[in-house]
């Protein structure tokens, strides 16, 4: 992905989610876009929280999606079927959530990921 495409991703996500920062570690890596302030529905907390998207093999595959490790649901636990991933010097929370994907709209991709927190409370 060239620099222009990356900047388009950042702009689109910033417009939709209030802010987006390109934190890609080096020119050869897939774009890593940090969303510093993403709203989560109750009972998920804290909200807003940070989210990190990694656009590997974009747009053929949906982006990888991680939230701040501190996010917990109504039972005080992380999302079910979660795992930790070391990215950019920190541990981020990934979780299993399937949805059909096609297209090239990064905002829609992130919104689909976020429906995990709407449809499940834990």
């Amino acid at each position, binding site marked *: 992905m060239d620099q222009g495409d990356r900047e388009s991703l950042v702009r689109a996500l910033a417009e939709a989610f209030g802010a987006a920062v390109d934190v890609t*570690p*080096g*020119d*050869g*890596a*897939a774009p890593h876009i940090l969303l510093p302030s993403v709203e989560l529905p109750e009972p998920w907390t804290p909200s807003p929280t940070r989210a990190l998207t990694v656009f*590997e*093999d974009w747009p053929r*595959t949906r982006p990888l999606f991680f939230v701040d*490790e501190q996010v917990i649901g109504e039972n005080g636990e992380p999302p079910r*079927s*979660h*795992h*930790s*991933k*070391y*990215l*950019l*010097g*920190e*541990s981020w929370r*990934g979780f*299993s959530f399937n949805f059909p994907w096609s297209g090239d709209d990064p905002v829609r991709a992130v919104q689909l990921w976020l429906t995990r927190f709407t449809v499940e409370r834990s």
Partner: protein
Amino acid sequence: MPPVAPRRPPARYVDLRITRALFEGVRSHVENFTRGEEAGFLLCSLSRLAERDVLLANEWHPVPDSAIARNANGSVLSWSSEFNSEVLQRAVDLGSTAVLVHSHGCPGPAFSDDDRRNERGLFAAFSRILDPLLTGTLLLGRGDACGSFWAAGGHGGLVFRRIVVVDAPLEIWHSGDDRITASPSRARLARQTLAIGPASDAKLRDAAVGVVGVSGGGSHVVQQLAHQGVGTLIPIDDQFLDETNLGRHVGATAADIDHTLKVDIAKRVINGIDESIEVRAVAERFPSRETIAALKEADVVVSCLDRFDAREDVNAFCRRYLIPLVDIGMTIRSTGEKLARADGQVIVSMPGRACLRCFFLTDSLLARERRERPPGYDENPDAVGDPQVVSMNGVLASEACNSVLDIVTGYSNGRRVARQWQYDGRTGELLSGDLPSRRAGCPACAEEGQGDPRSA
């Protein structure tokens, strides 16, 4: 009642960790006295540990000749404030700190009165601007060094300990404050010392080795590292022993099944060999906060994990913190009736050279694992485990321990360095080879030496 003097907080030690290539660049400049003294600034990231701070050297900025003013005999060095401003700006832009380096060219280095005067003028200001990062100055000797560090405008409570040159072997430039306890040679290591030299005992005692995954491969590794005399071992694993582990888990017994954490078995094995070995076990899965904090204390990390994404995480961590990594892995394919393939590898990944993401952990390999075995797959109790054979694990573990031994003691006299070993478990063939060149655009190498995240 007499006033009670305020209790001084214990001093924090400061280390510098630097790759061989960068250190040679620094030395070639500051140890060139043809024009008199030379100096430059190392830009460093930070790794904050429990009791010390480790500066991770990233960039070297020698003071250009055009900016220098020397006195008549070349022994007093000063340079333009414009250069200081450039360096400071670069440090701020990177979120790094600046460390001044020069040399007097002799062992037992000590700062001169001029050095001290210049230091006060420079670092009182630098440290306020770069706060909360510490900053300061290093003076190189001959295989030793001294340093003086500042934080938030003040100078106190920070004690420079050592420079660690990251290579095989690790090279330590000690300061006078590097309190290495003079201990008698350990009788139990007498035969090893005969083999690899009398200096090895103290080096091993002073070393800390992290072992991520202490099951099939890792249980062999911790046992051998304990026998070798490594002073501090950091086993990391979140699992309890189950019955299927007993076929290959060194040190485990039937009584441990479903009751004992694998790290507790590791501790039992290690301290059964030598009670004096410090064991900092963490019963969590990397990259939890506790495991990251524990592994930052390691001089070398051995990764004994099955999943490629987990090995990717450890590789990325070791790159950020300039820690040598020894990675072992075994893949066995069976027809169901008999062994089809048994391929293993040991890879020594040294900062400054190719990492696992440069050639082995490719994007396609990681993507395939995500599809076929998504994260969390191995935590499912009904998931089919991978084939394993204890004796084949042992071959890889032993070569990994030889690699650790070489990184710490240098016993191979440069013959091992950063290499890979390919093992065929069917034929017993073990072949070593060079690592490829670093991959341009490798995401892990792009984060090399960046240390703690800026938000930390």
